[in-house]
């Protein structure tokens, strides 16, 4: 198992999907030269992700931009159609880019994978937030308990940027 990503690490060269299986995006190419916030969540439409975690980043989008953040990305181990539908339901629009880590490759490369097979049917992504500048990780805030939002919240991240 990969050890968990930490400040100073470079983003892995992994392909995620933007809205459909035929719309691949290399995360490192997307983040090159930019200040990016990446939020990892266990599941689209799951209670905490839907009511607490993501809405915070949508609401704090302008504050993040004021701190120089160019892009906010949310990643989950869900297929691209589910992620697109979730973006619509959240009204995240052009504030948070929802990318599908369909095969958990990104979660595993970051050491952020968690086995939620019993509840959700597969390996999923732990709850975390991360600030990355030009593909170099600046801060990582992982929740110890992925069912809660505390360390990984948008307001906590704002204090670290």
């Amino acid at each position, binding site marked *: 198992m990969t050890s968990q990503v930490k400040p100073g690490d470079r983003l892995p060269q992994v392909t995620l999907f933007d809205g459909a299986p035929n719309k691949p995006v290399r995360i490192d190419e997307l983040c090159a030269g930019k200040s990016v916030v990446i939020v990892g969540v266990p599941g689209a439409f799951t209670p905490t992700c839907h009511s607490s975690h993501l809405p915070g980043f949508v609401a704090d989008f302008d504050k993040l931009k004021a701190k120089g953040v160019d892009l906010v990305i949310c990643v989950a*181990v869900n297929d691209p159609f*589910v992620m697109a539908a979730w973006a619509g339901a959240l009204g995240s629009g052009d504030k948070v880019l929802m990318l599908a880590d369909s095969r958990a490759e990104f979660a595993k490369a970051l050491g952020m994978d968690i086995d939620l097979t019993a509840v959700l049917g597969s390996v999923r992504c732990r709850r975390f937030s991360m600030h990355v500048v030009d593909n170099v990780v600046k801060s990582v805030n992982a929740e110890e308990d992925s069912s809660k939002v505390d360390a990984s919240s948008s307001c906590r991240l704002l204090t670290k940027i």
Partner: protein
Amino acid sequence: MHRLGFCAGQLGSLRLRLAGQLLPARAMSLKVGDKLPAMELVEGLEMKKVNLQELFAGQRSILFGVPGAFTPTCSRVHLPSYVRDYDKLKAKGISQVFCLAVNDPFVMQAWSDANGAEGKVRMLSDTQAIFVEAAGLSLDLSHLLGGLRAKRFVMVIEDGVVKQLDVEPDPTKATCTLADQLLQSL
């Protein structure tokens, strides 16, 4: 009256065991005349476990399977056909309609809400693909959606016994598994 799927045959290699026993781990095929296995799937945000044999006992039901909640064909055509024709299905003696997919219950509930399925089509999560694998109705969509999914199928079940089973030969299309097609044979 038994009816074989007219759009694709399912070649089974082993018969289902007696009702009440879990199916062996090897893939096999559910076919007309078989009793549903005593498997537990999950329904709803409360993550309620439902036993298939109990769920379908004493009722005339429809169970249709889709490759993925929120995927194009499933969303544009397949689920809406059952929501729209629900009353016609009831008029033909169907007492309950279920949709099954290898998606978690949160995704299934959101999809139900997005399609106005509440009170008409109930959503079953075969979260770990145990039913579709055991029934020979699984589809490897790892390259597209990340894992095993359900084939596109529809079953008519009477008192827990499969009376009709139709499987789409091309899972990206919905033809014989649509509600209006099924109505013609009920």
